[in-house]
């Protein structure tokens, strides 16, 4: 299978490392031979129809800060030209999320579909802005569209619901979907430390971004709830339909009061038909959603299976490559490979 990587940041690199590491496993276990025929970032592109040497690509891009430094690479804004012009089966859209416009990911995905290429993305922006449009465009163009990595990182939230729980009606989805805020709440709970102190610590550790607004105000979780509502509950929801409260006002004293009552405080996203919500909630200690550190956890409420919960790592390039690779294998199987 010929792949194009659009975006070569943490996730693009993580995926490349996984492709190197698992090359013989993919061939042996899945009969899949992935070949990255192009990689693009905001500064340029590297193209080789016979397949890029990923080890070399990682090395030169790591040093020069762009894939254009690869032998024969070109500089410039080349994403659209590569997506449309290079012969390939699957386009990986891995550029940073923009929740207002969905760009540049949104245009990348549309052009890839129009060019009859399957699309795998981790990018929440296009999914939040135009889920319905992309979903029907994929069907009209006869291509596969996968986005497991956009929610839950390594945790197979979408796949579990769509495939293994397909016989159920999903009544409600509740989850801890943001590792940064969960880390902050966990530290506040264990150390009785104030929010500002723990946030600074998280930033120093690289768990929180320099501008943590999207995480701590609950907007990142709201994006994921929007995606789950659209993809699993068949809703046509927008980000503005989610009622959002963040964790800025949660104080260590509040967590202590919660603990005295056998509970803890978690930032929970809740999706059910007619009501989408994100906010801090009291969760009983020992509950499947009372996970610590940067973990993510999701509980499905179902008509037949009643309750199913899963937990795992919600971020990190290596962990997320599990979902990105899973989507590729899934497409490979769907196409009869």
């Amino acid at each position, binding site marked *: 299978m010929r792949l194009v990587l659009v975006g070569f940041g943490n996730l693009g690199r993580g995926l490349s490392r996984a492709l190197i590491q698992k090359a013989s496993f993919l061939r042996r276990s899945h009969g899949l031979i992935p070949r990255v025929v192009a990689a693009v970032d905001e500064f340029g592109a590297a193209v080789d129809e016979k397949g890029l040497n990923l080890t070399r690509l990682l090395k030169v891009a790591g040093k020069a800060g762009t894939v254009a430094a690869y032998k024969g690479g070109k500089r410039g804004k080349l994403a659209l030209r590569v997506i449309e012009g290079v012969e390939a089966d699957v386009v990986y859209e891995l550029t940073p999320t923009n929740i207002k416009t969905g760009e540049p990911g949104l245009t990348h995905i549309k052009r890839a579909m129009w060019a009859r290429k399957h699309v795998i993305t981790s990018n929440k922006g296009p999914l939040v802005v135009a889920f319905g449009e992309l979903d029907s465009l994929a069907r009209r163009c006869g291509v596969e569209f996968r986005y497991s990595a956009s929610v839950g990182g390594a945790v197979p939230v979408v796949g579990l619901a769509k495939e293994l729980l397909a016989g159920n009606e999903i009544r409600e989805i*509740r989850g801890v979907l943001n590792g940064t805020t969960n880390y902050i709440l966990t530290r506040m709970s264990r150390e009785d430390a104030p929010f500002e102190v723990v946030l600074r610590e998280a930033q120093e550790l690289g768990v929180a971004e320099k501008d943590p607004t999207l995480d701590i105000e609950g907007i990142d979780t709201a994006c994921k709830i929007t995606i789950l509502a659209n993809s699993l509950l068949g809703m046509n929801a927008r980000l503005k339909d989610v009622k959002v409260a963040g964790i800025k006002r949660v104080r260590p004293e509040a967590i202590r009061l*919660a603990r005295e009552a056998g509970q803890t405080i978690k930032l929970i996203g809740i999706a059910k038909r007619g009501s989408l919500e994100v906010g801090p909630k009291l969760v009983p200690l020992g509950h499947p959603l009372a996970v610590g550190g940067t973990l993510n956890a999701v509980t499905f409420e179902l008509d037949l299976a009643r309750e199913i919960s899963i937990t795992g790592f919600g971020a990190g390039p290596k962990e997320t490559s599990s979902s990105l690779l899973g989507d590729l294998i899934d497409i490979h199987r769907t196409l009869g490979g």
Partner: protein
Amino acid sequence: MELEDVPGQLLKALEPISRFGGNIQSIMHQRERKTPLGRIPVMLIFEVGDRARLNRILAALRARGVRVTQLGEREGAVRTTALLIGPHTDIRDTIDRLGALRGVGVSDLSLAMGGLGQESAARMTITTDNEKRASLAISNLQRIADRKKLLLIASLEAG
């Protein structure tokens, strides 16, 4: 119930309750309010799974000579915990508004003050007759919180 004022009476009354699976929530031993016959009124609140167990407990109490003078029942009491974060200058008003709803009571208020100039946290237990009332109480509390600019942290399981 009314108990004789001799040692061991309270224990005698409590034993059947725990033996038949009752969960005691509170005991009020009103020694200062002795009856004309010198008995001590005791108010007990306990939770029990079903009516058959309750009948067994009552029968056992009667067999032991414990006099049950008044029996009140509340079916399926639902308790939920909620936290409110913000300036709690009028927490009394919040509780009164919530308590004014039919079948809704507030017990167990705890306050944790923040540092100077910081918000404080209040935890309350809300008791209602059933699940529906509980979720009604929470949505009312949410409205009160919105109006007073408080952050409500409700239980995950509440409505």
